[in-house]
């Protein structure tokens, strides 16, 4: 009964001073909105890192290249002057460095692919080892990967990416169809699952995978520029990567070897998100602080305008704590309203940021709960001073509308 009356009068007051209330809300609204965005984007980023590590599948492998990523690296005729590693050097790596499990030499080319008159330019052709599928954790949506027997028989076969399959054989079963690379007709025996955009920014689904043997027949490579190495114990990944790098740099003095870990890559790519989240947190904290201060001052101002009301309430029997309680209820209510609006704004902000910056966001109950919690805390913390001031007003003076003797 008493509480409902108090709440009603609070709502009346807030409603009648909607402009003041709006100003009180702005800071907290922005703060909560940004907070919600931080949480949603933070969770999205975390999920994406895990997801990417899952997709890449290899937390126990690293890749070395003789040229930086995004540049050449085909292992073809060394007409770019690039350093090429020999098969022997690469395949003997486990003998030289303790802890290395398997070595997966990979040959790369970018070449046109034809089906009949249809031609797609600049398609990634990779010559890979038998266990490539397993090590890279690749799944096939249909067909199968090439086997030992396929390689023995020298069959001209290939596994293609789903985008390529769609381009050439829309609505058809690509298995058994022929694609042409250089002069060879290759039979499609498998289609990969969708992987999306790869770490180097290329479409990983526009790809043709062939065996080393077929690749050699196609392009006559003179050496290797890309090698994926798996290690026995993932804990030694960094150490072994460094050892491998200095091993090759020892063989080829003056040359630079580039190393990349899938996990590190995934992390690095989301550095953007981490940086963003860091600054968003600062913005959220600052605007909550400013919001709180603004609210405190406006509440003080509103109390100055209501001194007679406070005097009257005291004359009618309000105790000091009734007065301070009413002020706190008001600031808490205003900040809850601001919090709710802030949460809605936060969703919009998150979606906008996620779209513009290509980030993932995950909404869950955390964001609104934490947002409201912070709004309420700010309201209470910054309401305490005005509440105390209001409670301490002398009733006789307050009834006359003055604060001081």
């Amino acid at each position, binding site marked *: 009964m008493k509480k409902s009356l108090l709440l009603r009068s609070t709502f009346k007051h807030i409603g009648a001073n909607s402009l003041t209330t709006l100003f009180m809300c702005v800071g907290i609204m922005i703060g909560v909105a940004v907070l919600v965005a931080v949480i949603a984007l933070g969770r999205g980023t975390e999920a994406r890192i895990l997801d990417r590590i899952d997709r890449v599948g290899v937390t126990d492998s690293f890749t070395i290249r003789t040229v930086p990523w995004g540049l050449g690296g085909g292992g073809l005729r060394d007409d770019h002057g690039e350093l090429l590693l020999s098969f022997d050097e690469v395949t003997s790596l486990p003998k030289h460095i303790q802890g290395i499990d398997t070595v997966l030499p990979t040959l790369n080319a970018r070449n046109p692919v034809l089906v009949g008159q249809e031609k797609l330019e600049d398609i990634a052709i990779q010559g890979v080892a038998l266990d490539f599928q397993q090590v890279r954790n690749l799944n096939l949506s249909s067909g199968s990967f090439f086997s030992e027997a396929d390689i023995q028989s020298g069959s001209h076969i290939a596994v293609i990416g789903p985008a390529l399959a769609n381009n050439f054989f829309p609505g058809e079963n690509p298995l058994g169809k022929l694609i042409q690379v250089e002069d060879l007709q290759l039979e499609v025996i498998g289609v990969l699952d969708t992987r999306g955009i790869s770490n180097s920014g290329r479409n990983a689904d526009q790809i043709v995978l062939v065996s080393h043997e077929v690749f050699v027949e196609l392009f006559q490579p003179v050496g290797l520029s890309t090698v994926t190495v798996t290690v026995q114990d993932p804990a030694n990944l960094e150490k072994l990567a460094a050892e491998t790098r200095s091993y090759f740099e020892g063989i080829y003095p003056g040359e630079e070897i580039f190393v990349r870990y899938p996990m590190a890559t995934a992390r690095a790519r989301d550095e953007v998100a981490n940086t963003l989240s860091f600054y968003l947190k600062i913005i959220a904290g600052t605007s909550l602080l400013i919001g709180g201060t603004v609210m405190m001052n406006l509440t003080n101002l509103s109390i100055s305008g209501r001194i007679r009301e406070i005097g009257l309430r005291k004359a*009618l029997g*309000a105790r000091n704590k009734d007065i301070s309680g009413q002020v706190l209820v008001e600031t808490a209510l205003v900040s809850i309203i601001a919090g709710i609006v802030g949460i809605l704004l936060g969703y919009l902000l998150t979606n906008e940021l996620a779209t513009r910056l290509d980030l993932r966001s995950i909404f869950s109950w955390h964001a609104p709960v934490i947002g409201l919690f912070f709004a309420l805390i700010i309201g209470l913390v910054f309401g305490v001073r005005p509440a105390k001031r209001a409670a301490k007003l002398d009733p006789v003076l307050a009834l006359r509308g003055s604060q001081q003797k």
Partner: protein
Amino acid sequence: MLYLNQVEKVYSNGSNRIEALQEISLKISPHTFLAIQGKSGSGKTTLLNILGCLDRPESGAYQIDGEDTSLKSDNGLAALRNKKFGFVFQSFNLMPRFNALENVIIPFIYSPNPPGRPKEATQQMLNKVGLSDRTKHLPGELSGGQQQRVAIARALVNNPDVILADEPTGALDNQTSQEILDILAELNSDGKTVIIVTHEKDIAQQCPYVLTLSDGRAIDLKKPGNENLSNGGVNVL
């Protein structure tokens, strides 16, 4: 019974000392209808504020029904204001955004034991002051006399023993003033103690007891000719 013994109140303003009340000793019995008159600055409002526990005396004692108010905490005084006293002000002091009913109901917010049906109790009080059909009106939609009647209903709603009115007719025309005074007289005949502060002689003259203050001292007390216990009593000690 309200009992003031050698009550003094001093306001100091830098080096200036203003002695608002000096050596006031009074006994006010239940059912009294008392007017306090005096010139501006004579201390009459200060006396009313002390009587209503809005203010504390500087020295001297104030007892309410035998209880010493100096022993009470601020919360204790607030409870007394809520239960024992009803206040009426010159400028009505209504909440402008609350309708008549919502204004009258406010003392219940601070009451330790409000009635089960506060709205009905509130409506009854508004009926009593003749505003049964103005319940939903905002103060701005009411005349001055009607606003003061809402204020009286608010003062009555917790069923206090004492009504304290500071210049209750100060903002009203003669006819309305008379109506308000009649309501207060009626409350007194219902058994309430009514104490009003006024500077209007014709208002004061209608009250059975009239205390005159000057420079913070009680200089005169007019008593009715036929003083008997049923209409209370005031003594300057």
